[in-house]
């Protein structure tokens, strides 16, 4: 295998590093490893160390960072006096222990690494260390045309790929100033709502598993499979569909889609009642989720948390309702909010959002208009296959769209949609060429992870898994 240059930086790029950021040598492991026989262990620690990104010992952490890590900084700007006993900065190192959870831990939902400072079994500080799945997708996006762009973003949040495609397409179309045909909007709504159902079912499954309910895991995957089968029928793929593209969708819905979707709706609605019986009323499940990982509305807003995590605190914020995109203002659905901001609220919000999505999907089946599934702009969307055989221009346009792509006027735009995890935003800058000058994805899980230290503080180590699960982080989106 020849040398892989993909990871070789070409130069130091611009300004010299800031004095604060000059790297210290990574810590050489624990003191007791300093003796000879442990050289190998010490080397391994140094090799896998992320240095100052990690949770450092209390004595080595400066007060401002320590206050942030225990969540006290959130209450400071409000002018509320901080209870000194709440920030036990004076706590010495010998009473506490820092342990690693992940990145290779089955219940961190991927390669999330949590560093936990424990006092006995109580979690004092938590620091998520991320980046183990970073693949530079935002850099890749600058090398791809807008036509290719959706194949890239669909791989970010791999449980809700259609939302990623949607947000990129909406951003590109906003810069193009394109007027979308109604059927394309409704097809997109149908697909993203089905995707929300499948994503929440996946969450129900993994959350059940994290709490020891393995039957829930099997049931969640079973129902999700039905949705994925419909996706495969429609888009050709179970994941990473590349179905929603700038200018519309890749294809029309298959014949008989109404029947398939109705079967999915009926089955999922029936099964959610079974989940209710299996989990919602279960005393064990309730004890493990009620009052665990609580969060207040002020804290959630200050930390920019969105989606079910924000709604669990009682803030009725859903972009589908508050800042409607597509045709969400034409369908009837409820925004589910919680009260206490605990694990149980987040569970019931997701369970009921499945029901609300099914409600939306039923309305979409009724209201689906006839028409075109993409805009008929020869510069943006390829001509129909049949035209290529008979028209020279159609062949040229087809060739141009797939080789050069289409040009997007200069400008910049921020577009956000409500993904199953929260506000999924896309900041797109165009310099007038067929490639994005800068494409930034605001991943909801990336931001929501910031709530973790606050939600875990003072809880038990056994609940850490459950709290982490109710944030529903997808590492592909966190690290991008």
């Amino acid at each position: 295998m020849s040398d892989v240059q993909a990871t070789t930086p070409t130069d130091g790029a611009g300004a010299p590093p800031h004095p604060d950021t000059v790297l210290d040598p990574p810590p050489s492991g624990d003191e007791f490893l300093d003796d000879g026989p442990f050289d190998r262990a010490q080397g391994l620690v140094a090799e896998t160390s992320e240095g100052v990104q990690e949770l450092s010992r209390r004595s080595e952490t400066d007060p401002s960072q320590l206050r942030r890590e225990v969540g006290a900084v959130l209450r400071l700007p409000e002018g509320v006096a901080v209870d000194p006993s709440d920030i036990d900065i004076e706590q010495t190192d010998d009473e506490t222990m820092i342990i690693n959870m992940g990145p290779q831990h089955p219940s961190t939902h991927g390669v999330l690494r949590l560093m936990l400072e424990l006092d006995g079994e109580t979690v004092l500080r938590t620091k998520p260390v991320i980046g183990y799945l970073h693949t530079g997708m935002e850099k890749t996006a600058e090398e791809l045309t807008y036509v290719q762009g959706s194949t890239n973003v669909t791989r970010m949040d791999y449980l809700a790929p259609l939302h990623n495609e949607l947000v990129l397409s909406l951003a590109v179309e906003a810069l193009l100033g394109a007027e979308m045909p109604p059927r394309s909007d409704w097809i997109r709504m149908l697909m993203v709502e089905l995707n929300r159902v499948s994503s929440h079912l996946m969450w129900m499954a993994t959350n059940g598993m994290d709490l020891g309910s393995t039957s829930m895991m099997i049931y969640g995957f079973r129902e999700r499979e039905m949705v994925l089968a419909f996706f495969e029928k429609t888009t050709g793929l179970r994941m990473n569909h590349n179905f929603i593209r700038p200018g519309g969708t890749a294809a029309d819905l298959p014949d008989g889609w109404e029947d398939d979707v109705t079967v999915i709706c009926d089955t999922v609605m029936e099964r959610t009642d079974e989940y209710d019986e299996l989990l919602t009323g279960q005393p064990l499940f309730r004890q493990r989720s009620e009052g665990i990982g609580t969060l207040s509305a002020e804290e959630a807003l200050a930390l920019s948390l969105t989606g079910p995590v924000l709604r669990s605190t009682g803030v009725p914020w859903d972009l589908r309702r508050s800042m409607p995109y597509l045709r969400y203002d034409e369908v009837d659905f409820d925004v589910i909010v919680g009260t206490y901001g605990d694990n149980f609220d987040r569970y019931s919000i997701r369970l009921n959002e499945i029901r609300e999505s099914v409600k939306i999907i039923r309305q979409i089946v009724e209201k689906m208009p006839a028409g075109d599934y993409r805009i008929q702009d020869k510069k943006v969307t390829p001509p129909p296959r049949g035209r290529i055989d008979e028209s020279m221009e159609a062949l040229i346009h087809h060739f141009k769209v797939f080789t050069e792509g289409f040009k997007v006027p200069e400008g910049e735009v921020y577009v956000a949609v409500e993904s199953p995890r929260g506000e999924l935003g896309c900041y797109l800058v165009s310099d007038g060429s067929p490639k994005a000058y800068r494409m930034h994805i605001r991943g909801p899980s990336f931001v929501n992870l910031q709530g973790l230290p606050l939600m875990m503080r003072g809880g038990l180590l056994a609940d850490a898994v459950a709290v982490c699960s109710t944030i529903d982080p997808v590492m592909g989106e966190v690290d991008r």
Partner: protein
Amino acid sequence: MTAAGAPEVVAEPTGASHSGGGVARATSRPGQEVVFPTRQSYVDAVRDYRDSGFEMCSDLCGVDYLTHPGRTLPNGVAPERFEVVVNLLSLSQARRVRVRLQVPESDATVPSLFDLYPGTEAMEREAFDLFGIVFVGHPDMTRILLPEDWEGHPLRKDYGVGRVPVQFKGAPGPR
């Protein structure tokens, strides 16, 4: 470097209006509200927004305009190499505003918004990691996505894309 980038005291009063001196305003093409503060008025401008009901900072990211210097900016805003783009969200008014701050290459430092919006913590670390823009006043200015010993800041335009060599004639070499 740090001294020059530290937020200076701004003489202008921070009243009810956001359109005080030093803050240019514009509306981008799809009808989105954009403001262009200077580095001196940046924190105050964002604070004014926070106090007038923008409860959440939904996004913060960097942009490197090295190869696209001639972008459209309102009068009075001198283009610089970097931009820090902050998207603020008002839940009560269902309204967004975008703050675009010009950051020169020679002194890529920006005052941190951490005290106003603690939620910018991870986002500012990401912008630092990928662009090398230093946020002064941030409690934990370390890399977040890349390993600690990584050299350079990959989303800068003069940072190579890198590629795996392929074996056929005429394949473009590494850039």
